């Protein structure tokens, strides 16, 4: 009990993962803004896919709020949209992160609810995790805040309540992810097409979720169909349990990343997969990241040494000539 309390309050864990999560979610948000930049008025605008009055009505009906509902002027829309880009950028870079994280979430939330028809599960998990992460410190690594703090002073807060809040925000995010896979896996087990192994055969006939090349390849093989459906169920249901052990954790990460790469390539749902894979940044702790970092550094050094060695040798042969 005392040890648990200590773990919770003595220091902030998972700071590197939280930083990586912030940067990659920020980049995904920026991608969303920029890839649809020229269709922005149609997708989210006051006279786009949705009539502005109806957006207001819809928000009132679901006790929801979006910044885009406040005015039907096109100028207002463009201002909000560009402010959204600005705050997504500041969030990605980690400038005044505590503040920009809140504002960025407000803008992302507003954008998502201004048009729900083009969203996917990746947007959904991102929205929820961005909310939990308001309570975590995501700027201890890879941020402008960090650079500035190093210059001024190196004071790191040791307040137990703040540490607990940070650690529980991270833990909530991880458990939320586990719930997601459990829920998704359970609903698959409930579906006949999933348990009889024909689900992929059917999904791959749907134009939006398929590619002729993979459809021909996978649908023509009963073994691939079965392996695909069953491994999806198994990977999702087992994810939370494999996380509990230090070594099986890597297997859990490896298998969900594999699942999502498959979904990205075969079904083309790459923004969905990118969000889900990004979530895996939370699975490694700071020690593990440091070990990975020093391994990479070592590898780079070895390669460089080899390269430089080769240069020297060539130099020597020149001398002989």
């Amino acid at each position, binding site marked *: 009990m005392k040890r648990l309390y200590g773990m919770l309050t003595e220091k902030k864990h998972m700071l590197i993962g939280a930083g990586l999560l912030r940067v990659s979610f920020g980049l995904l948000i920026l991608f969303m803004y920029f890839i649809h930049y020229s269709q922005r008025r149609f997708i989210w605008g006051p006279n786009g896919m949705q009539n502005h009055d109806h957006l207001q009505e819809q928000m009132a009906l679901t006790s929801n709020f979006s910044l885009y509902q406040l005015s039907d002027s096109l100028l207002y829309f463009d201002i909000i949209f560009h402010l959204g880009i600005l705050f997504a950028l500041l969030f990605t870079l980690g400038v005044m992160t505590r503040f920009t994280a809140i504002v960025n979430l407000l803008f992302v939330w507003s954008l998502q609810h201004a048009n729900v028809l083009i969203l996917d*599960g990746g947007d959904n*998990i991102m929205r929820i995790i961005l909310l939990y992460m308001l309570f975590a410190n995501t700027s201890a690594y890879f941020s402008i805040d960090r650079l500035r703090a190093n210059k001024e002073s190196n004071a790191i807060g040791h307040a137990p309540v703040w540490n*607990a809040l940070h650690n529980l925000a991270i*833990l909530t995010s991880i458990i939320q992810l586990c719930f997601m896979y459990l829920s998704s896996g359970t609903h698959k087990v409930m579906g006949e097409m999933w348990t009889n192994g024909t689900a992929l055969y059917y999904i791959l006939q749907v134009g939006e979720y398929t590619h002729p090349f993979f459809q021909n390849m996978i649908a023509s093989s009963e073994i691939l169909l079965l392996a695909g459906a069953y491994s999806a169920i198994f990977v999702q249901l087992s994810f939370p349990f494999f996380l509990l052990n230090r070594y099986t954790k890597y297997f859990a990460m490896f298998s969900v990343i594999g699942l999502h790469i498959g979904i990205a390539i075969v079904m083309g749902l790459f923004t969905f997969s990118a969000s889900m894979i990004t979530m895996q940044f939370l699975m490694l702790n700071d020690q593990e990241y440091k070990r990975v970092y020093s391994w990479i550094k070592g590898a780079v050094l070895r390669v460089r040494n080899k390269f430089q060695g080769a240069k020297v040798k060539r130099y020597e042969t020149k001398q002989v000539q």
Partner: protein
Amino acid sequence: MIKKIGVSLILCVFVFHLVITALYLTPFNPVKAKYSFAVNAYMEPLFSQNWRLFAPNPASTNNQFMVRAQFADGGTSDWLDLTTFMIDKNQANRFTPYNRLVRIQRGAFTSLYQTDEVTLKISQKIEEKNLDREDYDHLLENERTQKKDEYAQEALNRYAQSYVRSVYPEKDIEKTQIIMQETKAVPFSEKDNEQYEREQQLHEFKWVDFVEVSPVFD
């Protein structure tokens, strides 16, 4: 001491939130039937989430949307295909705006027929017991689902109208109409039967007045 109380409070919120989230995400069950109102009130809209992702029954039909326009001079256009070119463009390159735009039509159409779990259960019971649907209309239809249908249809029409405008930039358009051809998947048992004819169904939507919408394709 105060710090310990603070930490304990945070812990309570943490546990409470996770318990409710877990309940919110379970498949339909007695506890949920009883408390779903309270659970939903806590979870939505802030934490609303849905992870059924292609389950229990994945999408398997192809919906092809087509639109035609009526012009002020009395003429009517041919049917314009709204779906095929989007799918082709998305398959040719996943890193384009079409990767999301392609979802508009299916998203709107599913939203037309989508409903919450309790309503779905009632609807299934009516089917099972062969009851008269009209007697239960008050249970099946509520303001929220009705409005949702309206918005989804509007989105479909506006998408179609934006497209029609890009095809006929100069014409004076009065009305448009959408139809959707739903093509069922080839059942697994007929996989190798090349003569198999896929089941098709036509959904006809109403003519609607043309609205000048922000262009989707510049």
